[in-house]
């Protein structure tokens, strides 16, 4: 049996079940290693089987079956397709390569936006915000809650969630400006504590349930040649680029933006130039936290939300900040796209299970290779203990 036949047969079997809730389905697949799940046209990393509310796909190496196990999908849509891909020992076709490039680049724009919030805080406060991912997830939950309650399109929710998180920006600023030396290390510990608080708050408000902003508009797909572009990703990428563009304009063209940049480069010199350094810092905190909120809404359209989803996001943001340098917009964008493409290729090749681990390894490698540069970016002596 060749691969295409297998896939077609599997999809045919599942298509028959599309209109029902899928609780368990079996399909013959032949001797393939099946590790990936695609639901609603999007890749999902299978979470631990004990988590409620999500299907998980598993297969046996020697057997001929694939199973979808788990409670019913919460919102089956007419065009839910479930397909499997073979693993490893296969050649990446040009089509799948191109697909990875495009999908990866699109999600990479999102990653870049995500990293910017972290990078801004690092630049202006010399503080590493380990709670960055949790802020994003909080923004996502808020966005979901508003979407589910009001039915507004998610594009409108982006600025709303951003605004809703602004009070937290004031809290973060109040806490992080009190940090004793050594700032980088203490900021790590402090924000770790804050991330725990946020996780618990999210759990208290929304329990551990998975949430997704599943707008019909976002579930479509465009076909461009061999490549399928998911409209949800396109929307996210477009919004992310728009926000980054606005940010760039703001930081370079406005008086306020220049004040912020000067403060992050050298606060003392900025003060001497007459810039209100405190106001600039506070503004940057608000901006960074607002960005996290906006990112959260976009994240909620891409990926299921769960309380500890922020960990991976924070790690990715740190990786990108190490690659691109502190507060450099263009570099972050490029780095984000590179990361997105690399991730897509890796998932094509090895499946999504090891993604979190791969990000952690990537962070380790990046720290090893570039920590010196990051420390220099923060200023001499600031990178140490």
């Amino acid at each position, binding site marked *: 049996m060749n691969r295409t036949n297998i896939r077609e047969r599997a999809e045919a079997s599942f298509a028959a079940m599309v209109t029902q809730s899928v609780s368990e389905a079996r399909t013959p697949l032949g001797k393939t290693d099946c590790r990936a799940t695609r639901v609603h046209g999007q890749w999902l990393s299978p*979470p*631990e*089987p*004990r988590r409620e509310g999500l299907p998980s796909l598993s297969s046996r190496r020697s057997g001929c079956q694939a199973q979808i196990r788990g409670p019913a999908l919460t919102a089956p849509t007419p065009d839910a397709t479930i397909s499997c891909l073979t693993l490893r020992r296969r050649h990446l076709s040009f089509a799948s390569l191109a697909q990875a490039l495009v999908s990866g680049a699109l999600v990479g724009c999102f990653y870049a936006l995500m990293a910017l919030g972290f990078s801004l805080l690092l630049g202006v406060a010399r503080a*590493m915000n380990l709670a960055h991912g949790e802020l994003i997830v909080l923004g996502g939950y808020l966005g979901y809650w508003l979407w589910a309650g009001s039915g507004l399109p998610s594009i409108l929710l982006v600025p709303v969630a951003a605004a809703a998180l602004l009070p937290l920006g004031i809290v973060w600023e109040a*806490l992080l400006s*009190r*940090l*004793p030396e*050594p700032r*980088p*290390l*203490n*900021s*790590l*510990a*402090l924000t*770790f*504590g*804050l991330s*725990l*608080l946020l*996780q*618990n708050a999210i*759990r*208290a408000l929304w329990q551990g349930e998975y949430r997704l902003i599943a707008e019909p508009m976002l579930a479509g797909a465009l076909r461009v040649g061999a490549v399928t572009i998911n409209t949800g990703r396109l929307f996210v990428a477009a919004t992310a680029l728009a926000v980054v563009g606005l940010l760039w304009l703001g930081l370079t063209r406005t008086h306020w933006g220049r004040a912020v940049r000067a403060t992050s480069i050298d606060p003392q010199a900025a003060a001497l130039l007459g810039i209100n350094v405190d106001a600039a810092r506070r503004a940057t905190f608000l901006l960074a936290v607002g960005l996290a909120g906006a990112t959260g809404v976009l994240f909620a359209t891409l990926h299921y939300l769960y309380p500890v989803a922020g*960990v991976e996001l924070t*790690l990715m943001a*740190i990786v990108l900040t190490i690659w691109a340098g502190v507060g450099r917009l263009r570099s972050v964008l490029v780095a984000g796209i590179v990361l997105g493409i690399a991730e897509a290729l890796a998932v094509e090749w090895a499946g999504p*299970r*090891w993604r*979190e*681990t791969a*990000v*952690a*390894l990537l*962070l*380790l490698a990046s*720290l*090893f290779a570039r*920590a*010196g540069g*990051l*420390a220099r970016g923060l200023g001499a002596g600031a*990178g*140490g*203990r």
Partner: protein
Amino acid sequence: MRAWIVALAGAAVLAALPPLTGFHPYWLYLLTTAFLWAAVASAWNLLAYAGQISFGHAAFFGLGAYAAALLALGGLSPWTAGAIGTVAGAAGALLIGIASTRLTGAYLALATLAYAEVWRGIALNWTDVTGGGAGLIGIPALPEIAWLPVALTRGRAGAYYMALAHLLAVLALFAFILRSRVGLAFAAVREEEERASLLGLRPLGWKLLAFALSGGFTGAAGALYVYTVRVVEPDLVFNRYYSILPLVMAMFGGLHTWLGPAAAAISLYLLSELVLHPVAPALHQVGYALALIVVILYWPGGLAGLFSRKRHARP
């Protein structure tokens, strides 16, 4: 001198507690876990004494736990498996300790954090070996020791005394280190690594020693933990939260002090289990998080700072 007396008295009280309280299983379990945490906090403190702040001690805990679990399930005597678990913790620590050649401070901390995530990922995804998310069950408990009274080594009581012995071992080692050349080297590397280097110290060797000791004892704690709860899964032992807990406890008790971290660990743990948990079970992490924030912003000396300003890690 005073600290020694306190420690010995405390140890005696704790050793006498089970028979006096009738081997009450819940209390035994509670205190066993408290001792394990105190040991991990002290082990973390040892590494911090050498100047290396770790945000990834969960890695060593989990490595010890999984190694002991896998080997015990594979047929090895739990004692041997536990010993190998200790070695696994030490080896895992050495591996990331090598990073300390290039990374310091916040960057080393981040690296240890990422390191713990890597091991968690391996435990989660290498399903064939580790059982994946579901983990492993049916891990044997520590067997009774033939030449000791059965009541002291069986079941919960056995775990209690093992954990207590383990804690006393860590504290004894720390006390020995503090009074010896090793402690001097650790302190020198911590305070002024370059300067110490110019005086003839090779910093890497001492840092690796600190990592190995800290990781080994933490791995042993992990092994003891799985023998107590008899199950292991990634989120139980490689939990990110377990990386920050020793830091909170050690800072709360007084960084670099001898007894501070252990005392704070036991107090905080008992407080959270006995007071917070019944009241608001979902929020027990919140207590630690708040403790961490308070300690960093307002109370850098921790508990030990209350007792003596000049107190510096000498028993």
